[in-house]
C-alpha cells in the first residue's frame, strides 16, 4: 500500500483542511433545511443539493442491506421520496431519517422480491489486507478506503451494522435511527457500541497479525509489506 500511504502522507496537511468535507452535511444544517423546503415546491437546484447531501449515506447504508443492488434500491427510494415529498414535514435531519426508513423498507421488499441475499462485497481476507490503510494518522481519502470501510462494517451482525451506518454514515441520532429500525434509542446505542467494539478489536488483531500495527513511529516502515 505504498502508493496509498504516499498519497495519504502527502495530503496530511490538506487532510486537516478537508476534514470539513468528511462531514459535509452537518446534522441540522440550515442551508439544507431551506433547500428541502424549496425542493418541496419543485425547486430542482435545491433538490439536487439535498440529494447530494443525503444520497451517499443512503447508498452506503443500502449496500449493507442489498449489496450491489444498492443503486437500484436507492433509486426506488428517491422515487418514493419525491412522490411523497409533499407530505413530508420537517427539517433536513428528519428528512434523513424519513429517507432512511423508506430505503430500508424498499430494501426489505427488494430482498423479498428477488430472493437475493445481500452479499458482502469483499471477503474478510481481502478486507484484512486493506485494513492497513487505516494505520496512518491522516484522513483516509481514497475511495477504496471508503468502500473497504463500508464493507468492513457490513461484516458485523446485521443489527450492529445498521446501527453504526445509520448513525455514523446517515447522520441520524440514536432516536431517529431507532425509528428506522423499530427499536428504542437505547437498543440502538447498544448495538452501535457493540459494533464499534467488534470493529476496533478486529482491526487491532488484523493489523497486529499483519505486522503493520503502528505502535510507535518506527512502525510505519513496515507499512508497504502488506500491499
Amino acid at each position, binding site marked *: 500500500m505504498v502508493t496509498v500511504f504516499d498519497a495519504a502522507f502527502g495530503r496530511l496537511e490538506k487532510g486537516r483542511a*478537508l476534514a470539513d*468535507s*468528511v462531514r*459535509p*452535511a452537518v446534522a441540522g444544517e440550515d442551508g439544507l433545511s431551506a433547500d428541502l423546503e*424549496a425542493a418541496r*415546491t*419543485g*425547486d*430542482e*437546484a*435545491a*433538490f*439536487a443539493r439535498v*440529494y*447530494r447531501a443525503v*444520497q*451517499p*449515506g443512503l*447508498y*452506503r447504508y443500502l449496500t449493507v442491506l442489498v449489496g*450491489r443492488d444498492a*443503486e437500484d434500491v*436507492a*433509486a426506488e427510494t*428517491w*422515487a418514493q421520496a*419525491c*412522490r411523497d*415529498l*409533499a407530505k413530508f414535514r420537517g427539517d433536513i435531519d428528519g428528512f434523513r431519517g424519513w429517507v432512511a426508513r423508506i430505503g430500508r423498507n424498499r430494501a426489505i421488499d427488494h430482498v423479498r422480491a428477488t430472493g437475493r441475499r445481500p452479499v458482502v462485497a469483499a471477503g474478510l481476507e481481502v478486507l484484512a489486507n486493506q*485494513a492497513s490503510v*487505516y494505520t496512518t*494518522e491522516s*484522513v*483516509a*481519502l481514497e*475511495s477504496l478506503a*471508503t468502500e*473497504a*470501510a*463500508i464493507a468492513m*462494517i457490513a461484516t458485523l451482525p446485521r443489527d450492529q451494522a445498521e446501527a*453504526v*451506518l445509520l*448513525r*455514523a*454514515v446517515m447522520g441520524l441520532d440514536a432516536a431517529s435511527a431507532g425509528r428506522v429500525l423499530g427499536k428504542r434509542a437505547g437498543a440502538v*446505542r447498544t448495538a*452501535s*457500541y457493540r459494533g*464499534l*467494539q467488534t*470493529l*476496533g*478489536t478486529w*482491526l*487491532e488483531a488484523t*493489523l497486529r497479525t499483519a505486522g503493520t500495527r*503502528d505502535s510507535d513511529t518506527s512502525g510505519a516502515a513496515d507499512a508497504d509489506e502488506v500491499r
Partner: protein
Amino acid sequence: MHRSPRISRAEAESLLGGGTSGPPELVALLRAATSTSPASAAELAGEAQALMALRAAHPVPVHPRKRTRMIKSALAQLVAAKIAATAAVAAAATGGVVLAAASGSLPGPLQDAAHSAFGAPEPGHAQHSHPVPNATTTSDTAGPSAPSDSESDQPTVQPSTTPSAAATPNPSLAGLCKAYQAGVANSRGKALDNPAFTVLITAAGGKDNVLTYCAAHAAPGTSGSAAAIATKTHGRPNASTHGNAQPGSQSTHGNGRPGSASTHGNGQPGSQSTHGNAQPGSQSTHGNGRP
C-alpha cells in the same frame, strides 16, 4: 499513541458523531466510511432519475423566490419577475427571446432572470451552442405537462454541470460517461436502458459505441469529482450539444432528437417552449422527422 482494544461507551458515541478520539484505526475507518470527498459516481449516478421523479411530482416548478402563485410558463415568469414594463415583449415572446437567453446574450438582468428561471447561461457566460432546455413545462398548448410515464422522458440532467475546461466535448456527456462507466463497473448490463443515457447513446451513435465513445471523450475518471459536488447546479442544467451536431447545423439522430440533446420532462427539445410537434424555424430537423 492511544492504544486500547476496548472503547468506552462515551468514546463510541463520540466516534459515531464524527469525533476523533479513540483507536486511530477505528477513527480512520469511520472517517473513510463517512467521507464524501470524493463521492463515487455510483453514489451520485441516480441524480438524473431522482430529478425526473421530482419533476413528475411537480410539473410546474415554482421559482424559489416567488412561491406565491403558480405561473403557467417559465417565460411568463421571467417576464413578470424582471420586466414588468415590457409587457409587449412578453406578449410577443417567441423563441427568439428564449434563444437569446440560451445563448447568454440577453442583457445582464434579463439573462440573470433567465438563468434562474430555466437554467440558461449566467450573464457573461454566453454559450453559443447550448440551447436552453425546455423553458417551461406547461403552457396551455403544450399538452400534458406532467409526463404520465416518467420513464419515457429524456432528461437533460447529468451528474455534473461543471462547464468543463477540460477536453471533453461537453460536460454533461462526460458526466454521463462517468455514470455509465460506474454502472458498467457494477455489472449493470441494463445501465443503458436508463433514459438518462439516451443522450449518451445518441452522442456515441449507438449502444455499442458508448464504451469507445466514453474512452475517447470522457474526462479521466476520478470517481465523481469533488468539483461535481461543489458545482452549483442549475435546476435545469444547460442543454448539452452533441459533439457532432451543433444547433446551427441540425442533424437527425437515430432516436430522433435534435442536436441540442436537451429534452425536458415532457420530451420537448431544447430551445422552444412550444410543444414537441411544431418547431419554429430554429431547428432544421426534429426527432419526429419534421423539418
